[in-house]
């Protein structure tokens, strides 16, 4: 025991020395890597998205958490990779975060109204046309408190996202848009996803229509508004974008209906109920006949080799 312990002690001492040496070596290596890494990263940063201010040095850290801005939590973390892959990946932070100051906390995030206003100004700086159309749309009217107090009015970033903004012609975005609209118009998304267009876009058929193909996007208006893409005057033109042969009757196709609801047109409701009833009755009779046949067969032992007839 003793010798073993002694030998072990000697080894432990030697090992401690060795370990200490190695430890310094590793520490030095890590420092070196960090230092060079930092320098290389800083150099890279200087050329890319986050620009010369290096915002992502802090805001690229997931542990940064969030701050409270006028009662709502504002996430401080910006995923560097997701940002670089976004449509704005090459823009410096301050191109959208206008009025940015080096104070801590940055003045702009301490006030929600200022924050929202800057966000709009930021989008407008490059996308003036879209912004102008938005301003004239129902959503824009809502945002100014014109229709329903402006509380839930969607702004640019509610539909487009912020740091992960995508090109709107990608399949991913065209698939996402249903869920984005659904955040406020949930029932409409459900009925849409139950149509051919909804199913096909879900399954990746790029050519399929989405919410915005019929309703419009920035200049979206209620269908009761004569300027709407789906107003009585414009409905057919909108359908003809993809279905050039369509005539007036085509517009009587209803996207947002629940066939088994009494709100649905009578013929749709009647056919839906007829089919549900038929499915129940047919399977009840077929199923009972089959089950009874199995019962009789089992009773006669005909499935398990006892053989014989009837």
């Amino acid at each position, binding site marked *: 025991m003793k010798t073993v312990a002694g030998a072990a002690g000697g080894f432990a001492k030697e090992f401690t020395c060795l370990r200490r040496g190695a430890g310094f070596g590793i520490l030095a290596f890590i420092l070196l890597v960090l230092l060079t890494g930092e320098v290389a990263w800083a150099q890279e940063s200087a050329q890319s998205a986050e620009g010369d201010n290096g915002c992502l040095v802090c805001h690229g850290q997931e542990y940064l958490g969030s701050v409270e801005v006028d009662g709502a939590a504002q996430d401080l973390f910006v995923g560097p990779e997701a940002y670089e892959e976004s449509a704005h990946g090459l823009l410096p932070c301050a191109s959208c975060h206008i009025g940015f100051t080096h104070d801590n906390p940055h003045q702009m995030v301490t006030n929600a109204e200022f924050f929202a206003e800057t966000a709009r100004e930021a989008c407008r700086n490059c996308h003036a046309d879209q912004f102008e159309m938005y301003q004239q749309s129902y959503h824009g009217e809502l945002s100014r408190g014109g229709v329903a107090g402006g509380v839930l009015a969607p702004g640019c970033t509610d539909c487009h996202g912020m740091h992960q903004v995508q090109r709107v012609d990608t399949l991913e975005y065209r698939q996402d848009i249903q869920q984005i609209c659904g955040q406020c118009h949930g029932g409409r998304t459900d009925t849409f*996803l139950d149509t051919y267009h909804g199913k096909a876009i879900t399954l990746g058929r790029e050519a399929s229509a989405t919410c915005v193909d019929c309703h419009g996007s920035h200049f979206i208006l209620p269908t009761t508004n004569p300027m709407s893409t789906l107003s009585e005057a414009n409905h057919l033109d909108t359908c003809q974008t993809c279905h050039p042969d369509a005539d007036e*009757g085509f517009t009587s*196709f209803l996207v947002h209906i629940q066939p088994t609801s009494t709100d649905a047109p009578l013929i749709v409701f009647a056919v839906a109920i007829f089919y549900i009833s*038929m499915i129940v009755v047919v*399977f009840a009779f*077929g199923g009972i006949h*089959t089950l009874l046949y199995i019962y009789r067969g089992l009773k006669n032992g005909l499935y398990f080799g006892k053989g014989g007839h*009837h």
Partner: protein
Amino acid sequence: MAEATYPATGEERLEGAAVAETNVEGRDYYVRFSPYHRLSHFVMMTTFIGCALTGPPLKYSYDFWAQAMMGFWGGVENAGLIHRVMAGFMVADFVIHVLYLGYHIGLKKAKIFGPDSIFFWKKDLTDALGMVKWFFDRGPRPRFERFTFWEKFDYWAVFWGIAMIGTSGFALWFPTVTSTLVSGIFLNVARIIHGDEAILAIGWILFVHLYNSHLRMNVFPMDPVIFTGRMPVEHVKHDKAAWYDRLVREGKIKPE
């Protein structure tokens, strides 16, 4: 070898009387389905499977399996193409069958109601009641004629099914034609018919038709008659006693 065709006519019966049975492996067989019947069923079966594998992934687009299945077909457009090609052959099969019915009923004056007919008649009701009694051992198994009531039901389910699913399918395939001919709201109607009829058809085939034709006692685990056309005479006697008696009476098969 005589081919028992539907509906058998006087001439055919006489022809058939001479060589009404075929001997395979020491068993007497009766040719129940003509080559046309077998081909027609084969086309129906394969095109049905083709449609049933390409349609439901669209209907259940929100399910993970649907997305995997669409991936297998190479996307919605490929699956749609396969679905339409299959549907085209199925409808062609159906149209040829309607012509076949027209030929036999219209030109050859085949009887619409009778023992050789696929149309329902009074005996089907008594047979069905008899089956229920037999299931509970309260009576003998009905003495079936050429087509049992469940076989007739299978046939008419397909007949109705193709008419409905085919019409609604074309309506959805050519939406602007539909809206010009009738109205856009019929696209809503067609979608309900197409999807629900598919549930009926696939459910019926899986849980009723396959059971009735293959898993039923005495034929379990498979009855190849729809592919070979041939049915053991012994089987005819036990399964369709009234038909057997008639075939013996008509001199079409040798009594067992």
